[in-house]
């Protein structure tokens, strides 16, 4: 089992004919993902990477039965692409694009909520369910290994590094989800934790947060109310000064909200073991899984 994505998922890629879209679609196929179509307005009727290309998501869904979309379109068109996917009835939309205007995302997110579709991202590496041989996004294929750990993180490279370090210690992932570094996101830590809670394959969750916003504090509240699985936490940006945007648009301490200290304290109050380094994450995962 896994969350959000499995071997049954039929994936279409919006922006597949672009250079990023092409490269990562190839990688997704190589990993085993069931990619069924591409969508590029104006290029419908053609073929790309041996797959049919459509002018609209609606046409692609009718022809191929796609259930999931990966969005690789440029920032100016990304919010529209997300809404198009939801309007066509797709249940999961994964948006990799970064630098999307935040008010565009406010509208796109409200639109998705009204249609019951789920969004991962934007400005994220996507997600991967190694045991199901399925991924949507840009997580490097070699980092995936099937196993009992659910990974959820705001950062791309940290997700990869955590996956690799866990794999080196012999622990694979049920699903790894990069929720993204923007201020306005689709799925939050809380949403993903709830999904992991009811996934039988997931025995433990690694949650890697960072400064900015209060999604980590919300997650701590959820865990504090009684979470069925152990959670190992990690927060980066402990040395970040207030008011400075640390690379991610969402990684900024503003006023009294968003500091690493507040997040670490909230998680520890909820009984989460918070690791200081990635090596410590691996140690804690090892200790918890051995204890059973």
């Amino acid at each position, binding site marked *: 089992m896994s969350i959000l994505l499995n071997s049954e998922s039929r994936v279409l890629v919006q922006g597949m004919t672009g250079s990023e879209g092409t490269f990562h679609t190839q990688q997704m196929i190589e990993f085993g993902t069931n990619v069924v179509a591409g969508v590029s307005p104006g290029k419908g009727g053609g073929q790309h990477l041996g797959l049919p290309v459509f002018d609209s998501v609606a046409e692609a869904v009718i022809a191929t039965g796609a259930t999931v979309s990966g969005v690789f379109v440029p*920032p*100016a068109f990304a919010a529209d692409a997300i809404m198009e996917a939801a309007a066509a009835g797709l249940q999961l939309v994964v948006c990799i694009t970064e*630098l*999307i*205007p*935040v*008010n*565009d*995302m*406010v*509208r796109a*997110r*409200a*639109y998705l909520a009204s249609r019951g579709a789920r969004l991962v991202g934007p400005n994220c590496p996507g997600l991967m369910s190694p045991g199901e041989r399925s991924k949507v996004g*840009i*997580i*490097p294929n*070699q*980092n995936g290994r099937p196993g009992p750990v659910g990974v959820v*993180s*705001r*950062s*791309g*490279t*940290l997700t*990869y*590094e955590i996956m*690799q370090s866990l794999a080196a210690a012999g622990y694979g992932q049920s699903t790894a989800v990069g929720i993204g*570094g923007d*201020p*306005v*996101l689709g799925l939050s830590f809380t949403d993903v934790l709830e999904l992991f809670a009811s996934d039988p394959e997931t025995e433990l969750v690694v949650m*890697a947060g*960072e*400064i*900015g*916003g*209060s*999604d980590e504090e*919300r997650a701590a509240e959820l865990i504090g109310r009684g979470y069925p699985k152990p959670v190992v936490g990690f927060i*980066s*940006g*402990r*040395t*970040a*000064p207030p008011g*400075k*945007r*640390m*690379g*991610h*648009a*969402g*990684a900024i301490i503003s*006023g*009294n909200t968003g500091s690493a200290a507040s997040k670490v304290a909230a998680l520890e109050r909820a009984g989460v073991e918070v690791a*200081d*380094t*990635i*090596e410590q994450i691996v140690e804690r995962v090892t200790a918890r899984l051995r204890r059973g």
Partner: protein
Amino acid sequence: MKLLEHQAKAQFRSEGIECPMGRVARTPGEAESAARELGGVVVKAQVPIGGRGKAGGVKVARTPEEAHAAASQILQMEIRGYRVPAVLLEELLDIGQELYLGVTLDRDRRRLAVLLSFAGGMEIEDVAERTPEKIAKLWPDPFSGPLPFEIRQLTLNALASAQGEQVLERSRLLGMMVPLVQRLYQLCQRLDATLCEINPLVVTRSGQLIAGDGKVEVDQNAEYRHQDLVRELGGDAEAASSGDDQLEVEARRRGLTYVHLGGDIGVIGNGAGLVMNTLDLVKQQGGSPANFLDIGGGAKAEVVRQALEMVLLDPEVKGIFVNIFGGITRGDEVAKGLIQARDELQIKLPLVVRMTGTREEEGRRLLEEAGIIPAVSAPEAARRVVEMVAGAGR
């Protein structure tokens, strides 16, 4: 992009939000003739930060001569590091009451929030901290915007915590707030702003609602849609960034994601989360990071060279820590860039590199051949660079 007050108010006016009569002046002479037109005025420094009143950047002038004197003083000021490119002269208002009205991004709700308070004129952050019950909030549907009944309820909620007597009677206030809030929200949408704020929103004794001050922040990701504003900022843009960290200004010019932190260990990595974590590792080992620099995914040798060059512009830097996780980024590319940069820039400072992932072996071999010993783990690399910098200082 933060608009200066006079630019924000030009936007307010175009949306039908009332502002005091005013003129922009760039010389004391211009200020004097503006005051001749306007009568008694307030002269305000145009800088993109708060607290200018406390710094002496706001003065009342009753005569054109006083306006000349005030402008000549203010135009020479530097307010918290920011040069003053212009002053705004505005008619004096007959202030009955000061409110706060703002539209701002609420990350938790993933929507724009409308904030209204009768405790206006103060920093809203202070009000939010000390007496949060005095701020009424509304989170409109982003497609419909704030609806009239929602705005009336917002106003009633704010009134419930207001103290003292109101200048405007309730029916009048409810009627006036509806178009005002709709216009400010509309402006926020049109400008792709993450903040549109009127503080104070002045209620004059004659019962008008007038924007006493104006703050607008346009989302950096949407600037491409507002090239007219970027152009308009034109000559003021340099002054508007004069108080910013000059290393960060230079990094922006070079298109690099860099934050100056003031320590002595330069940090370069790929991915925002990874770089933040690298800073944390340096601190855990007792070191002090000089900067945050994210070279992003798939960086080529040339980008690595530029990053090193940027870090070295900071004279405080005494050692460099490069932390690369290879996903799309290839270890051999990074290694080539590092070696090339070290040789070209003749870097003598301690340089510690940790790399893992794609083409790790090739990258490490290249580094070793060039005399740069790659570290085994990130914590080990952090310890080494901190030790080397401390050792060099002795």
